């Protein structure tokens, strides 16, 4: 168990993620031309957990897409663990990079069982493609990992994922995303489709899994309170730029109002976000 979640022992001086001068323009040269990314620089050291906030359309998801390889940027570099992956296809990057999306339907295969979904995610880090996916020791390992989620899913290993609730599916997705010890975990509003109760449970679980595995993580959220309390850094985005990068020290004692004031000072306008949640 502990070996599954132990942190990667790579040299702690090399950044896990380096994003340099990333730019992306959608529909260039047309009337709907849109500069979604205008020179993004981000560096995450191993084990760092950064929250990302910003207005609607600030380019948060686009930045994640460029890091994960779902879109190719127009300019700039993406380095993961020192390797330049800017033009590497998404499914190849996914060996060391995991994502969880807002939509619980997106992260799991509905007609496969809970155990099969997890086995599939685990299998990507192993290389025995013609071995049986559900060997006994593998099944026991999956059982234990499911039990550690605290959602009672270890009792439902052989039910199809399609019959689970959104919160349960998101818990499975989170396990799938982290079971192979990814170098980088990207969470794009992964609780936005859940009710408040499930949101709390999934965020607690996120905290637990990320800190247990010291997984380098970026999490987009619309809850400014969470953005300040979770992880150890807060990145603020506006109009395709990072307008503030609040370190752990600076964050201490900072309230939601302070963050809003910081945004206004750096971006030159109020944080305009119809989804933003100002709860503490």
């Amino acid at each position, binding site marked *: 168990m502990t070996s599954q979640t132990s942190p990667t022992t790579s040299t702690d001086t090399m950044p896990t993620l380096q994003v340099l001068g990333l730019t992306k323009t959608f529909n260039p040269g047309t009337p709907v031309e849109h500069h979604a990314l205008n020179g993004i620089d981000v560096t995450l050291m191993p084990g760092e957990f950064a929250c990302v906030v910003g207005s609607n359309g600030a380019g948060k998801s686009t930045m994640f897409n460029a890091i994960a390889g779902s879109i190719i940027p127009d300019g700039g570099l993406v380095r993961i663990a020192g390797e330049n992956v800017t033009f590497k296809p998404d499914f190849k990057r996914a060996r060391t990079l995991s994502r969880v999306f807002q939509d619980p339907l997106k992260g799991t295969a509905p007609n496969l069982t809970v155990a099969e979904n997890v086995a*599939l995610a685990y299998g990507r880090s192993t290389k025995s493609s013609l071995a049986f*996916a*559900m060997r006994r020791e593998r099944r026991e390992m999956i059982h234990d990992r499911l039990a550690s989620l605290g959602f009672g899913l270890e009792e439902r290993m052989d039910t199809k994922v399609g019959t689970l609730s959104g919160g349960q599916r998101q818990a499975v997705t989170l396990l799938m995303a982290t079971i192979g010890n990814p170098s980088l975990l990207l969470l794009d509003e992964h609780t936005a489709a859940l009710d408040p109760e499930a949101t709390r449970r999934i965020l607690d679980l996120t905290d637990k899994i990320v800190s247990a595995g010291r997984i380098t993580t970026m999490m987009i959220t619309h809850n400014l309170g969470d953005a300040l309390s979770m992880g150890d850094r807060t990145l603020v985005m506006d109009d395709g730029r990072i307008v503030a990068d609040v370190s752990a020290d600076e964050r201490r004692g900072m309230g939601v109002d302070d963050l809003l004031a910081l945004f206004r000072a750096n971006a030159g306008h109020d944080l305009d976000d119809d989804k933003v949640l100002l709860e503490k």
Partner: protein
Amino acid sequence: MSPSVIFDAVMLGFEYSLLAVGIYISFRILDMADLTVDGSFCLGMAVSATCAVAGHPVLGLVLGCVAGAAAGCVTGLLITRAKINPLLAGIISMTGLYSVNIYVLGGPNVSLLDAPKAYDTFVTLAKGVLKVSQVKMVFIVVLVAAIVAVLAAFLHTESGLAMRATGDNEDMCRASSINTNLMKVVGLAVANCLVGLTGALLAQYQGYADMGSGTGMVMVGLASVIIGELFGGRRGVTAGLVCSVVGSVVYRLIIQSALMVNFIDSNALKLISACIVAVFMGAPAVRDAIRSSKQKKVAREKAEAYELALASAATAGSTTAAGSPAGAAPSDDATTEGGR
């Protein structure tokens, strides 16, 4: 039905069962309607017949598989590399194969009556013990069982799981570093390999190859898969594979019974398979529509009753006040109308 007729129908069911298994893989596992099937069926048939006539019946079966798989690869590459709509990609392959098949066979049909067959060795071995038809039955049942067992095992390996997930949630697969394009090409190759083998077997079992016999094979396969699902084919992949075989046999028994009672003639076979597919695929939607129209009817009756109650309450109030029966008149109309 006499036992020999049932025997023949069951054997025919097994002969066509790998077609159903192939369709199960493309249709249920990859979630694609693959129209290559009509072409790859004939391709397998043509290759098998040509080899058998040249004296190599076993090689014919092997090359029938290979040729079918190649056809599946072409469709898979058209879908994944050329980004052509899967239905259209299947039609492109099927159309191209029509010419290829005639070149391979050297004509629209060929008789194999005098050519050696793949099961000949076993016929000689079992001489005096089993009749030729019994040997043919054992040969096909063993072959189908072995192939289904291998496929069931494969679909439980990590690659097999990845293939099943590709048809289930492609986005998630790419996010799990699964090469979904490769999975689709391999899946279509396996599916059409089985279809090619079906054609190859059929040529030798029936003793002729006819380039018209591929038409409508998609429907035959789909009908078998759907019938198989009535026997529990939805429970899991192994069940799905086995039930596709069962579905193929049941389909032939149904057709045979319909032919026996002169309910249909053999020209109607394609129509029957088309109807089976249409009826079963449409059934869920029709059932939902019936259910919701029933709900609507109940709701409407309740609303009418409620209106009646309101109206009679109003007339009860107004008759005591003004003595006018006007309020009751429309509701009386409504009840007589309903009674008609």
